[in-house]
């Protein structure tokens, strides 16, 4: 009897370490319940405020819990709220805050129910945090499902837009295939190593399990495929452009940044913590995937006219760059990936904010045409977009340059110099489409003469009107400007971020 009680005792729980998770999960429930009240003030002010507060609290706890070198797992070895998890979590939280800001004036979210919309967003973020901190294959899978299922719904949240519904369905089908593949892979890994803990797996490989065990390698391969779906790594990326284009743009921006960061967090954790001893086996395979992704993403982006599709394909290419940091399997690789993800966050947020600002007022939607001559009409939007494009292309004095520099550094130091060249070749190809976006804004003339004095208020959704002025949507302009400023500041004074990612590198010990 006593034995039974002892076995049933719940594991030791470190609530402070879990606080960020609890904040977002609690916030999700709070928003959902508060959303039941119908008042305009509740729907438009209170709900976003509650959701944002939950995220800010989560960020605050992440900062408080920041302890480099503390890699001890918590909750019966299910989670590790180490610096890697906290860093990635902060990317999710910031990305979530931005998404809330970008959705403020978005009518479809109101139609679908702001409470539900925000609850799903926070739920997805909770799943991401769980995924990024997973120390156990089961937690990993729970995390990835908790991340994905709300996202499927969010993609379809523009109820009257066929493309949004199609995107949701497409993402659901393909995401499920990815999840199933991942689960199968995880099962095989468990079968080969007899453990679901990453620690246990790492101990088993090279010990009781031969490095060349076919079961293990098949399991790793299937897990890679499953995660590659989430991270939009080619050739498992086909859903990306369609879903990015169809999904509501605030959701797209969230998917582009946060989902990618979550997928890379778990890729780093799996490969650098559970499988580092078999790096010689999976390294070349992942390297081939990375190079293929870089080329496919960049080449496919060239022919696009939709800004969201351009950003989707560019996201595929960036996933290839990021994968380089995983391939090398070194601490330097972890640091470079973490740095690039932070840079990727600010670059993409700036770009997506401008896309949203334009598609709400332009008759051209998210077509390249909607940016024509933006430099004259709205310099406050043109500059952030320009900076974002130049940064994504890797021009100096932006975070993108330093990020690529760091990744190339990691590649060369990890004996994958040719991957460094692949990054460079990818950047060359990417110039064609990034510069085209810039050229449309600065070098093409628009026939319509825009009035210089803006009207005081413009309805945020509706047809295009020449009076449309960015000042009617100050929160979007603010997000774009702040993100662009951060892109430049991180490109000129990157040292603070370097200090942070050095701490991130300590989260997985035993690497080069």
């Amino acid at each position: 009897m006593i034995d039974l009680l002892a076995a049933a005792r719940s594991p030791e729980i470190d609530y402070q370490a879990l606080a960020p998770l609890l904040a977002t999960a609690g916030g999700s429930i709070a928003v959902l319940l508060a959303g039941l009240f119908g008042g305009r003030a509740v729907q438009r002010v209170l709900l976003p405020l509650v959701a944002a507060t939950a995220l800010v609290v989560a960020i605050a706890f992440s900062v408080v819990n920041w302890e480099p070198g503390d890699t001890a797992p918590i909750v019966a070895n299910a989670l590790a709220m180490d610096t890697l998890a906290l860093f990635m979590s902060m990317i999710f939280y910031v990305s979530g805050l931005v998404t809330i800001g970008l959705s403020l004036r978005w009518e479809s979210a109101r139609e679908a129910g702001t409470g539900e919309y925000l609850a799903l967003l926070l739920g997805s973020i909770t799943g991401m945090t769980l995924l990024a901190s997973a120390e156990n294959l089961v937690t990993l899978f729970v995390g990835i499902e908790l991340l994905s299922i709300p996202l499927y719904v969010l993609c379809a949240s523009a109820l009257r837009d066929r493309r949004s519904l199609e995107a949701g369905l497409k993402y659901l089908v393909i995401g499920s295939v990815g999840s199933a593949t991942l689960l199968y892979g995880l099962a095989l890994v468990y079968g080969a190593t007899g453990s679901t803990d990453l620690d246990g797996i790492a101990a088993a490989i090279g010990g009781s399990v031969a490095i060349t065990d076919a079961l293990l390698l098949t399991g790793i391969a299937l897990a890679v495929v499953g995660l590659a779906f989430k991270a939009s790594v080619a050739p498992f990326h086909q859903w990306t452009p369609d879903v990015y284009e169809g999904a509501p743009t605030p959701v797209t921006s969230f998917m582009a940044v946060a989902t990618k960061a979550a997928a890379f967090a778990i890729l780093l954790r799996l490969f650098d913590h559970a499988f580092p001893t078999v790096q010689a086996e999976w390294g070349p395979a992942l390297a081939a995937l990375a190079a293929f992704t870089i080329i496919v993403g960049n080449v496919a982006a060239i022919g696009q006219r939709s800004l969201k599709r351009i950003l989707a394909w560019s996201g595929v290419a960036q996933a290839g760059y990021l994968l380089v940091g995983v391939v090398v399997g070194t601490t330097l690789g972890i640091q470079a990936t973490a740095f690039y993800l932070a840079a990727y966050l600010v670059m993409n947020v700036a770009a997506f904010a401008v896309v949203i600002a334009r598609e709400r007022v332009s008759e051209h939607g998210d077509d390249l045409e909607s940016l024509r001559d933006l430099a004259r009409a709205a310099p406050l939007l043109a500059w952030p977009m320009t900076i974002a494009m130049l940064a994504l292309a890797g021009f100096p004095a932006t975070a993108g340059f330093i990020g690529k520099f760091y990744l190339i550094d990691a590649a060369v130091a990890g004996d994958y110099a040719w991957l460094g060249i692949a990054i460079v070749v990818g950047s060359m190809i990417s110039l064609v489409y990034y510069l085209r976006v810039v050229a449309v804004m600065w070098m093409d003339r628009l026939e319509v003469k825009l009035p210089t004095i803006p009207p005081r208020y413009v309805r945020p959704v509706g047809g295009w009107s020449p009076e449309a002025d960015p000042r009617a949507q100050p929160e979007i302009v603010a997000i774009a400007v702040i993100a662009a400023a951060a892109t430049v500041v991180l490109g000129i004074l990157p040292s603070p971020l370097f200090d942070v990612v050095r701490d991130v590198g300590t989260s997985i010990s035993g690497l080069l």
Partner: protein
Amino acid sequence: MVDVSLSVLIFLPLAAALVGALAPPRVGRWVAVGGSVVALAYVLVILEDFSRASAALQFTTDVAWISELGVRYSLGVDGLNLFLILLTALLWVPAMVWAALRVADRPRLFMFHMALAETAVLGAFCAQDLALFVVFFDLMLVPFYFLIGGWGQGERVAATTKFVIYTLVGSLLMLAGAVALGVLTASETGNELTFSIRELAQSPLPAGTQNWIFLLFAAAFLVKAPAFPLHGWVVDTYRATPIPVLVVLSAVLSKVGVYAFLRIVLPVMPDASATFQEPMLVVAVISILYGSVLAFSQSEPRLVVAYSSIAQLGFILLGIFALDELGAQGALMQMVNHGLVVAALFFIIAALTARAAGSPSLEQMGGMALRAPVLAALFLIVALATLAMPGSPNFVGEILILFGALEEQLVYALVASVGVALAAVYGIRLLQRSMHNRVGPSVEGGDLGRLDLGVIAPLAAVIVALGVYPQLILDRTEAATTAKVTAAAESAGQGGRDRPAIEAPGGPIFEEPGADPRTELDGGESHAEVSEGR
């Protein structure tokens, strides 16, 4: 001690333009011009304080920038970049003044991009850290992209895209090469990761590794130059670029690439430089012949100058890859000369075009000498310099290059000297067709206005002065250029003149007495090594 003087110089134009961008348009553009004028004055002060006897870096700044990546904010001036910095500051002033008076569309934005370009170019010339150099080298492209695409003529967007993609392909390859160079050197020596050019030069990589990195660097610098097989962007860009931008693009930007051969490639990769000496000389000679022949057959003055630039840059490349002290010095001299001459030529071409009813074609010009005698006189001075008449600075530069090449690589020098003759053909043809001959069908207008006179006459005066007194440059550059070619020359087995062999691999630093460079080069005095002054 941190000497901020170079940082002030580099960022002054940008800061002034930022202030100008916030001021009202009428004032704003002149604030930006003021920034470039002050920068020029500042460089003149540096020139005055420059100690000519030393090959060591002066006015150095060296602080950690991104310590995780081993990137340092490291600047310095020596004989190698002193006059290129001066050239930059000197040529930006007339370009800015011209732009302030003639650019009507979004003038403050135009001036901002011009100033950003000046900052980036000055930074690239001053940088003593390879990664910092790459940053400035790539940053240069951004303002030029907007300047050509936003204010150009004709197919400006296509031209600027082509220009940026061509050059950035090169510089991204260089980025990979630079990172590889730093990382591999660090793992070779076991030291901390560093991109300091001086430290990289002290521990060169094995020859095999040097070779592929050399190719990455060469791609970047040859595109920028431009040299023969990589010059595809030149024609469209030269056609589309507005005049003040074209002045600095052709006169200064093209020098960054060839300068980097002397600053980075030869000292850091001496073995590869020796290995690829012959291919590079072939590229140089083909550029000379190809550029000269095509310059002869163009009907637009802009394109005549464009192709003649390819030829001139070929000469500079020849001087550098002769791997000889005289050749390198001549190359440096010629960089400055070509910059001055080309800048003056483009302002003259702007004046010609204005007098030929806006037509860019030589067919529409002719007989302007009688209407515009001052323009004709200035054009004559500049044209004579182009074809390297004795008494012009170009004569000194080309002679030094040919001496250097004759000493080491006889065949290439002989072929290249054909280029000198061809220069006379296209130079005189350009002068004759526009100034003399029958008066063109739509030629109108009189002599130079105050603005045109104000920008062209000082440039012509500088050209004449330099022709009379080339020692101004030669005295101060000799020590530094010699130091840069020594390691590569030794690796190529052409130890140079009867100078004592210098042991330290990769660009040792000498102290030279500042005597007449000719006698000194032939005399072979002893060279005392000094540590770099910080």
